[in-house]
């Protein structure tokens, strides 16, 4: 099923190009900047071939995705993407603790061995209630208790709802870890073991790479991937489509293979959030583990 997902990713990338093309249809001049206020023409034109064999000239700036997106500035990373409000839906009925999400996340963020940003909990609330697997990411709360207590703005809430960490700012007091009721934050107790190439990169709040000694790390909803038009690593890594990601303002979430209208999905499947009583207002929604795709098998899951 791997190929299927890849094709999805390509599709995502393509549709961005296509969006530039579309404007072209509407205004004769194929790649005008009129409807793309964020993009300024570079003046450098590229000649391309259409399916009819016609040659079209396109300004390089409108070719998306640009091969190498420059890393966003710290100020930009702190503010977030305007006009977006990211949400995640985790369908518990699909999870059998394959933990591909965890592996992909650990790999892409170069997390210290043994530590995890994504945890897959075997849950059973009471003796006679059903056991189920519950993957947790950072909840990216709308009223984040961790951000409340940070003394130096090292962890912050962005416009688009994402809570990030600036490891170049963090003083390592660990108050945020104490404040987080979901235990999603981890600490770099020692110098992270990283390849030289990774370790020498300048830290970016959006990639959370490289992790730094004496600072806190956690799930970041992969805003770097989102900027490139890709899904967070956990979403694309899950073979069972447990994770769905999207923009609340577009009312859509997708796991790559399937796309749902967020409000319908939550309504139809009675979605809920964790620890609602604490008033943290998470951005991660859960679909209850009913009509499950897999039985709960602890040995296999572990």
């Amino acid at each position, binding site marked *: 099923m791997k190929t299927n997902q890849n094709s999805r990713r390509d599709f995502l990338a393509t549709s961005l190009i296509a969006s530039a093309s579309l404007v072209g249809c509407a205004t004769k001049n194929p790649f005008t900047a009129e409807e793309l206020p964020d993009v300024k023409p570079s003046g450098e034109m590229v000649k391309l071939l259409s399916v009819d064999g016609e040659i079209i000239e396109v300004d390089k700036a409108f070719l998306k995705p640009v091969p190498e997106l420059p890393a966003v500035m710290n100020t930009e990373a702190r503010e977030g993407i305007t006009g977006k409000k990211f949400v995640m839906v985790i369908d518990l009925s699909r999870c059998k603790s394959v933990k591909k999400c965890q592996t992909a996340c650990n790999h892409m963020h170069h997390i210290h061995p043994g*530590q995890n940003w994504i*945890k897959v909990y075997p849950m059973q609330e009471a003796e006679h209630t059903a056991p189920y697997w519950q993957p947790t990411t950072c909840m990216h709360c709308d009223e984040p208790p961790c951000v409340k207590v*940070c003394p130096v703005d090292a962890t912050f809430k962005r416009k688009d709802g994402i809570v990030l960490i600036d490891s170049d700012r963090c003083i390592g007091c660990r108050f945020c870890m104490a404040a987080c009721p979901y235990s999603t934050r981890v600490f770099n107790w020692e110098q992270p073991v990283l390849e030289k190439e990774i370790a020498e990169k300048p830290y970016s709040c959006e990639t959370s790479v490289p992790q730094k000694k004496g600072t806190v790390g956690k799930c970041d909803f992969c805003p770097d991937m989102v900027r490139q038009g890709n899904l967070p690593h956990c979403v694309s890594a899950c073979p069972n489509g447990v994770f769905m990601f999207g923009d609340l303002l577009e009312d859509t979430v997708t796991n790559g293979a399937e796309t749902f209208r967020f409000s319908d999905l939550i309504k139809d499947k009675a979605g809920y959030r964790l620890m609602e009583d604490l008033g943290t207002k998470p951005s991660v929604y859960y679909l209850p583990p009913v009509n499950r795709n897999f039985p709960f098998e602890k040995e296999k899951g572990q």
Partner: protein
Amino acid sequence: MDKLKENQIIEDLLPQKFGKLGRIWVASLIAVCALGAFAYGRQLYYGLEVTAMRDYVSWGIYISNFVFFVAISLVGSLITAVLRLTNVKWSTPLTRIAEIIAVSAITFASLIIIVDMGRPERFYNLFLHGRLQSPIIWDVIVITTYFFISLLLLYFPLLPDLKILIAFKERNGKWLQKLYVFLGSYWKDKHAQFKITDKAINILAIAIIPVAFSIHTVTSWLFATTYRPGWDSTNFGAYFISGAFLVGAGGVVVAMYIFRKHYKLEKYITDDHFDRMGKVLVMLALLYLYFNVNEFLVPAFKMKKSEEEHLLGLFTGEFAPIFWFAIFTAMFIPIFILLFKKGRKPLPAFIAGVLVVVGSWFKRFLIVTPTLLHPFLPMHDVPANYHHYIPTWEEWAIAGGSLAGALLVITFFARIFPIIPIHETILETESQENEKHF
């Protein structure tokens, strides 16, 4: 009062050079500090990995030590301010002991919090990027304020004593003389000067109470502003302050006994002082007990699921031995000892004081760690050693080093300045004699 008697008081109370015992004491404290410094060097090099703290127990004995220091520093306000404002005269000889304990404890409280930081070299971020919303910033502000107020409260009553000290040029030696002159050469025993210091001390006595309450209340809020079972309590500020007064008073009793014994101050720190401090301790222990009952009985009555594991862990589980040890040594046994008149003699009172201090240290450990081991979601997907917390030798060495450092500050202070206010003692004796005459 005749000059002879006054000279006798001065002679008795002047700071003395370290004897053999004193030197051994100082050397061993320095050794403990050095070990702590070495351990901290390792921590700086390897990171907090050298501690046993991990993602679940993210605060360990550094933070409990911090809370302990803040707690014990509250005694400055209790002895000097509260007793002064209520016109309690017998506490005069104890004020300086209490104030120096306060200053040295608050100093080491701020040091130990830096030790706990993952990136201590970024401490300046607190000033560059400080967020007013964070209780840590509140703590930084109130601790700084309390430090300065305590220094002032130490300094004003010291001025007349400095004049007395300066008079003993030969005895002081070059360096001390320079220090005394620098600090107090302008004090001329003028009536107008006394008027100002009296006023200043009165203002300080009032001002220090809200600030002292703030430091410990805000420290309790570092915990109480989170959701965690065991910390999520509206009782926390009062619970912390009552505990702080108890440990502070216990600390003063211990210091009283040691200074009295070592410097032969029986005339100045009398059995009566122990008797009275013993009564104060009983009252404070009962007060703390009251808040403990509130803190544990109420949630235990409900046994909310999130609290259950935490509470049972304390009552009967893995932390039960430390829990009951702390409850008994910090409260029940001292109360039992000090309720009897014989128990308030210096030696038994000293023992009760030691029990209070030791029990209180463990109590602070229990406030911090067990809560962290009972998060809302079960501990999962972490290495096995993340499930427990047994401090490493580095942590013990650093914590021990900070305690030794605080004692060292107090020791050197007693070497340099009179640990019992000379001037005030003379005044006190005078007024007592006058009373006798009438």
